[in-house]
């Protein structure tokens, strides 16, 4: 019997190696896999490359992981936040590498990785410093730049519902980068608010089919407004 649901954080996190590329779901406080980031802190992997929309806030979650010097490089669109002190301190001290990526290009690079598309052309960033050093091509009279896929070794995902095959649904704007992190990562790890019996999630309502998911942990933490 296939059962992707694991019973402990240690089981969920097992096998994450130093130097991994970690894709993080979440936008603002919503859809962030906070429990999984804490699990990764506990698990101990270091020298990580983390891709996420933001670079963490305060001293918890991603900011805490960075504060512990476990992140070598961050790939994000918007490193500022309400309280970006950890990132800014590390960045100014030259202790963390930053790759700024336009938000849509970040999302598309993840989708491309999940879809087996190694690179794609986009108009976003043409004529700006994002285009420096990138291949340019004119297609149909407009200039585009080549952007490469962004594959994760590990994807950390927050879902609303999950079943033992790994089918996922999301809640409202909590969807954001989560389905992309799941499809783009070699090892997709999910925290889900609700565990459903197989067949209980209407197939028409599944957003991320289980083929993109490896392990699921039940984390019924309630609403995200406290984060």
């Amino acid at each position: 019997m296939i059962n992707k649901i694991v019973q402990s954080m240690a089981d969920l996190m097992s096998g994450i190696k130093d130097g991994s590329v970690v894709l993080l779901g979440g936008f603002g406080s919503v859809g962030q896999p906070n429990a999984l980031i804490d699990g990764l802190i506990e698990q101990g992997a270091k020298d990580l490359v983390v891709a996420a929309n933001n670079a963490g806030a305060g001293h918890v979650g991603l900011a805490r992981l960075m504060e512990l010097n476990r992140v070598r490089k961050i790939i994000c669109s918007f490193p500022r936040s309400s309280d970006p002190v950890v990132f800014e301190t590390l960045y100014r001290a030259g202790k963390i590498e930053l790759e700024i990526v336009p938000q849509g290009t970040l999302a598309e690079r993840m989708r491309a990785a999940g879809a087996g598309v190694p690179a794609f052309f986009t108009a976003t960033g043409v004529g700006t410093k994002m285009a420096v050093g990138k291949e340019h091509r004119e297609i149909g009279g407009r200039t585009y730049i080549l952007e490469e896929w962004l594959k994760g070794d590990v994807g950390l995902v927050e879902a609303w519902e999950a079943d033992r095959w790994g089918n996922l649904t999301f809640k409202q704007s909590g969807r954001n980068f989560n389905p992309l992190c799941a499809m783009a990562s070699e090892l997709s790890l999910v925290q889900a608010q609700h565990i459903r019996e197989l067949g209980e999630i209407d197939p028409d309502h599944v957003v991320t089919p289980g083929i993109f998911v490896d392990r699921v942990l039940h984390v019924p933490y309630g609403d995200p407004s406290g984060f």
Partner: protein
Amino acid sequence: MSETAVASFKPFTRPQMAQRAAADIPEGWYVNLGIGIPTLISDYVPAGREVIFHSENGVLGMGPAPEKDKIEPWLINAGKQYVTMLPGGSFCHHADSFSMIRGGHLDLCVLGAFQVADNGDIANWATSENDTAPAVGGAMDLAAGAKRLWVLMEHTTKDGSSKLVTKCSYPLTAPGAVKRIYTNLATIDVTDRGFVVLGMAPGLSLEDLQARTDAKLHLPA
């Protein structure tokens, strides 16, 4: 220029700027509003006119801010503020949301800016080539991808220098993208001829406006 020479003119307030832009949005347009003054536009869409608002984080059909006791903790906009959904609204993931932007499906995006040049170049994400931690967000996607880009901003900086320029000195968000600018002093189209003044704050003369604008201003042909 002396203060007395222009004492009689009255700049538009921020709500008035938003109201002027909102009045020009036709029914049926899909619109993304940038963080800051542009967000005010949604409050001024004339009653009965259906305009569909999009937010980068996968929200289409966004309504106004909720009453305090009706907050949905999972429902935020790209500015991380709580919002509501209108009947007919939908959610999608980030790649689909940016497909709406990058695929040319949005009729309009309205952004704030540091500078706009008279060839339509926009600079709105960094104020130096060596910004300590530049944050671009979705600005480059929106500027390059929406069918048309309008800018809503103050006409001058706090120290009085023009934000409408012949060449942006700050790093570009996108070249040649801006079609129209709403400022506290005027509404200006960006055309092949450069900046064309469509309207001005009450009491302001074209000479007064030109004195506050680096780039050459034209009147409609």
